[in-house]
């Protein structure tokens, strides 16, 4: 089965994580993961541009294994939009990555809009680190998704990270309300909710990502392996859905 990790970080992170693209390739080979969509870690120098360049270089070197998300900080205003354009138009990357927790903004904030307008104009998906309290709660994500119904949005972590389950209902609501949100699976501890998304909303609404190395890649694969889904549904979740979203045949 084709496995694609839609959510794999590379580079040295300000927050203590580190992984080279080569090390990720080794992990992927061991675990039969064909491809990964790379996310640049926020580097110790805080500037995202060098991280985007390093990642784009890895994508250029391994076009059969890697795709890439351009990461920008909405607080940078026009410079963020310029960097996104460079990432998509010059570096050939595949979508926009927003990280409200590490860049510290609320995802429903209007300062995100110019980036979303661009994403809509060039038809790229937007992956959003979701479930961070006060910053990207599921209904914050829904607010943005409702404002940009033509933009495909990938909400990570099952849209929530409340371990008491208090946000699971909001996650369900956001998924039902916003047909343009696709749920990503990393850290999502409630398998019944993921199966419910596939069964009630369609197998194109859930996809596999690891958010490694913050989360454990082996453990995240196991999370999908254990879902009560058909082989066909798992094929969609493990690989086909992300390829469709980044418009790769």
């Amino acid at each position, binding site marked *: 089965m084709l496995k694609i990790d839609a959510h794999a970080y590379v580079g040295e992170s300000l927050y203590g994580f580190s992984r080279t693209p080569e090390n990720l390739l080794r992990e992927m080979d061991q675990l039969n993961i064909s491809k990964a969509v790379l996310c640049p870690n926020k580097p110790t120098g805080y500037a995202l541009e060098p991280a985007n360049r390093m990642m784009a270089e890895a994508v250029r070197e391994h076009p059969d294994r890697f795709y890439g998300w351009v990461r920008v900080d909405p607080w940078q205003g026009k410079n963020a939009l310029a960097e996104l354009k460079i990432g998509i138009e010059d570096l050939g990357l595949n979508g926009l990555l927003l990280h409200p927790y590490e860049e510290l903004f609320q995802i429903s904030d209007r300062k995100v809009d110019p980036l979303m307008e661009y994403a809509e104009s060039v038809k790229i998906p937007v992956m959003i680190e979701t479930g961070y*309290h006060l910053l990207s709660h599921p209904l914050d994500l829904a607010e943005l998704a409702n404002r940009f119904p033509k933009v495909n949005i990938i909400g990570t972590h099952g849209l929530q*990270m*409340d*371990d*008491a*389950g*208090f946000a699971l209902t909001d996650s369900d609501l956001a998924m039902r309300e916003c047909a343009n949100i696709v749920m990503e699976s990393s*850290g999502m*501890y*409630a*398998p*019944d909710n993921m199966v419910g998304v596939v069964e009630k909303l369609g197998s194109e609404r859930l996809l596999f990502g690891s958010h490694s190395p913050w*989360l*454990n890649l*082996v*453990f995240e694969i*196991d*999370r999908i392996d*254990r879902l009560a889904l058909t082989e066909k549904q798992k094929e969609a979740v493990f690989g086909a859905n992300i390829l469709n979203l980044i418009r790769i045949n």
Partner: protein
Amino acid sequence: MDKAGVRMAAISGYLNAPGPNPDGFKVISDAVAKYPDRLIGYARLDPWFDDRCVDALNVAVRDWGCRGIKLHPAHYTLYPYGPETVKLARRAGELGLPILFHCGDEIMCLPYQIDRLALQCPETTIILAHIGGFFSGESALNVAERRKNILVDTSEVPFPEMVRKAVDRLGIEKVLWGTDAPCCDILHEIKKIELAGLNEKQQQLIFAENYAHLMGINLEAFRA
């Protein structure tokens, strides 16, 4: 449990007692009565009811052999170190019952809040479920490290590495396995322990022996 090879489980309900359902413990007490060698019943309680809550515990112990308490302070919205919970926890200590706390990132369930309870109830064993969840893991380890009466359980926390960290910081005897099923998948929770970089003996302690020791369960009887 049979499918996953799990011999025994501590069980609790979804609702607190006392509460709107006067028969709230029935599902637990019936299950324990039916499968006494497989299930260990916990009373899920609401300390807001103060003496009535303590009474409910006494009755649960007397009538159906309740062997532990489950508390989820964000469900009933009380500071875990407030007088109502202290009263209940001290009674639990007298009865020799552990208290399993939901311990994660929610206000009322934070490790440093539960720590203030543990300080006031040194005779009561307190288990921090989920080792602090997504973001409060380090705090959970900090408090479990300094209090003899605080243990952790591995359910739901999304990091296998956190299990290893707990073993290194707290000593293996303070780490218990749990699933939080049916919210979480039992086999996935087993996989977490297998990925934690522990040897077979350490895994055995986490999977069974530590909890058996805490609860006075004779594992030899199973092995015979």
